[in-house]
């Protein structure tokens, strides 16, 4: 099965087994390893990517469904000012422990700040509600998200 889509801004064309999950398409076929498999049940958020700009669990999406669409992983957001601010805030704010949940959580946080540059603490909680983190207890990541919002230059 051929899938043509846009990955991190670049057109890719990939010959993949039928019924493959987007998560596996990214990890096994395309070598995008920042996307993590935490459950494959659509419940942990470690596999979060942006599909057409919206955060989704890539383990719940068949690769065929991304045909013609745009998929963004953390690699594709490297130079985005919001992501730069998030990275800095996460690193300096002690928001990273084991790091397994981190890429997924950063994607959700990015989508939040892109749409809502000054979220309330509750909005921040809601935005990463689907990203389970068993290490940090969320308080420092939430603080980091709010800090990143302050740091991000207004457009």
């Amino acid at each position, binding site marked *: 099965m051929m899938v043509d889509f846009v990955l991190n801004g670049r057109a890719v064309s990939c010959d993949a087994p039928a019924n493959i999950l987007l998560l596996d398409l990214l990890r096994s076929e395309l070598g995008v390893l920042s996307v993590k498999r935490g459950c494959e049940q659509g419940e942990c958020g470690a596999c979060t990517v942006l599909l057409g700009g919206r955060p989704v669990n890539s383990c719940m999406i068949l690769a065929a469904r991304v045909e013609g669409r745009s998929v963004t992983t953390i690699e594709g957001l490297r130079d985005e000012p919001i992501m730069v601010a998030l990275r800095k805030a996460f690193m300096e704010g002690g928001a990273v422990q084991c790091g397994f949940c981190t890429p997924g959580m950063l994607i959700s946080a990015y989508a939040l700040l892109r749409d809502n540059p000054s979220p309330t603490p509750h909005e921040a909680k809601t935005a990463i509600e689907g990203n389970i983190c068993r*290490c940090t207890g969320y308080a420092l990541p939430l603080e980091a998200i709010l800090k990143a919002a302050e740091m991000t230059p207004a457009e």
Partner: protein
Amino acid sequence: MRYDRILEELLNRDDFLVVGRSVVRTDALDKVLGRAKFTADYVPRDTAVVKVVRSPHPHALIEGINIEPALELPGVQTVLIAADVPGENQIGYALPDQPFLNDVKTRFVGDPVALVVAADKGSAVEGADAVRVKYSPLPSVLDTTDALRDGAPLVHEGGNVALTTKIRKGSIEEGFSEAEVVIEDLYDTPYQDHMYMEPEAAYAIPEGSGKVTVIGGMQSPFLVREKVAHILGWDLNQVRIIQALTGGAFGGKDDMGPLVCAKAALAAVKTGKPASLIFDREESVAYSNKRFPARIKYKSGADKEGRITAIDVDITLECGAFANRAPFWLWRQTAHAAGPYEVHNASVDGRAVYTNKVFGGSFRGFGDVALHFAAESQVDRLAGELGMDPVELRLRNILKPGSRTTCDQLLDHSVGIEECLTKVAEASRWSSQKRKRNGSRVTGFGVGCAYHGISTSRSTPDWSAASLILNQDGSMTYRTGICELGQGAPIGHAKIVAEIIGAPMESIRIEVPDTDSTPNAKPTHGSRGLMLGGTAAADAAIKLRERMVRVAADMLGCPEGEVDLRDGKASKKGEPGETIRFPELAEELYNRGVSPASYGFYASPKRYFDPETGLGVNYSVYTFAASVVEVEVDTETGVCEVVKVWPAMDVGKAIDPLVIEGQIHGAVSQGIGFTIMEHLKLKDGVVLTPGFKDYVVPSALDTPEYAPTIIVEEPYQHSAFGAKGVGEPAIISVVPAITNAIYDAVGVRLNMLPATAEMLHAAMRRGAR
């Protein structure tokens, strides 16, 4: 001791370079860029996949295993059974009660029988389904009460009691006769799943003949090496274990690391090709180790002044199918039975009991969570009966320097619990906080204290090693067998090295633990990673520092005592003008034939206990914690929310305050989950909740407000800078703080956790105020 003197000097420094300051973790950048590599990220695409064939019965004899139908499937490469194990088919941790692959009988739903090795995951799953195992089911025991009955089916031949423990101190008869009030009750704590975000994983690569490399998630590469070698029947040096960055562990991967790595290794060695074994989330929740459930009968009395006069404690620990860490877990509970209080009369009996359920194992807090849940509930109730403030009653009994623990161990220093409790009560304005009602919602406050002995239980000798190399360009290579699990202990070691040598943090590279080159630091458990491992790091750094100082003194033409090392430079104290940069100094060491490599080793002071009375020196030092918690309970629904937490901990010396805060928040979050949310449901030994959907752990929405962490520093004499481990105590103190707060709010005590909304609602209907 020269070594202690140097530590003492270091501790009395008045200007620390990096110790005590929060620095950006050296692994953070890769993690936020998505470049950090976990085990699954090392596995090439076409690697063979291992799938475990597991028993569907809680207890059954194996009549026969037919692997032929599986071997006929196109993708299946081989199927391995007990007869294929070249070494000893036994992987029990403390007792030899856990066959690696079962061929006689299976003891829980999920007990491994065979390994299918296939070209891909789909074929491996099909292959596992095709293996025909003929079972003859046996009657099973599914709780400890049944297991202890006369004539109960035996999980293991020797009987259902795996081991017992006891303490006899003073006279409880006398103690209870002095008591004004006596409370007795039963406390039940359940399984808890670790739910680390990264499931168990191993990737094994055969290296020619007679050597195998395994990359995996684990907490002790050297334990993994030992177990893998044992299964293969090989020497230790034929097995190379590399710990990949591990996506959370919390104790779980201390047990699961060896089990998973040995399976992948056997598959790789038998097929001669690389093989990977990565658990699904379902497998992880249904079949991996859990927090051991416990039932604790706790009787305690206090006199009019609120002094605890005696405790009589009876602990029944549920092992599940194998003892695993139970001897250590149960002993820890036994040894900590009084909680962080001085009690002169104590009787404690413990027994670890087999059942036909998933096996228990290591988990943050290691036995002390259940024990303190009981002990701290009791303390609150004694205060209630006496009409005394619960903080006040605690303070009247609290351990101080000069006090003796439950095991009669004299604590001569590093005892900061009184300060933790006083400060946390102050910060939370404890004495003026009042239960409040707002419609159906009631707010209440609770307090919990904890102590947790550092390092392995049962007085196991403890030591740790590390190595440090000064490279010719002045950069440093640091190696420790202490694992990075997210908790940051190895980075703490690097800070200790940086502090002692005066090297910039970024010049120190922490290598991944690799048993072919890393010194054995023993396991990353028991809150020992920073304390034991970090002290070995300090030893390595001190030795190297002395040589660097000697050469620098010669180059600078000044006495050694006047050399200052900082910012990657050597200079004369008070004369920062003339400096020698580390690359230059390093080159000089090499040229003069002064060794640039240093091996650090540290052994804990000796510990011992009397098996008859349980008395002795059980842990070299204890970390202490206190928490105050505010909860809000909805009396109509039973939903309880932890609103705010005030944490305090005596950490000895804070190596990194932000890391400590992260450890406390993470532990509190797991404590909240354990107390009011996480519910592993089983029926007939089958786990019914094998995923995040049914086994609900805290999400961001369940995050309480945190008051700033109160850090108390009562340094420990025998560790680097006086630091003690910080990963565990917060969960221990917060669990009873939550249930005590629930009691304050709605007047019911849930002695059986988890206190889910359903249970709380039912309990309130039975008798709330």
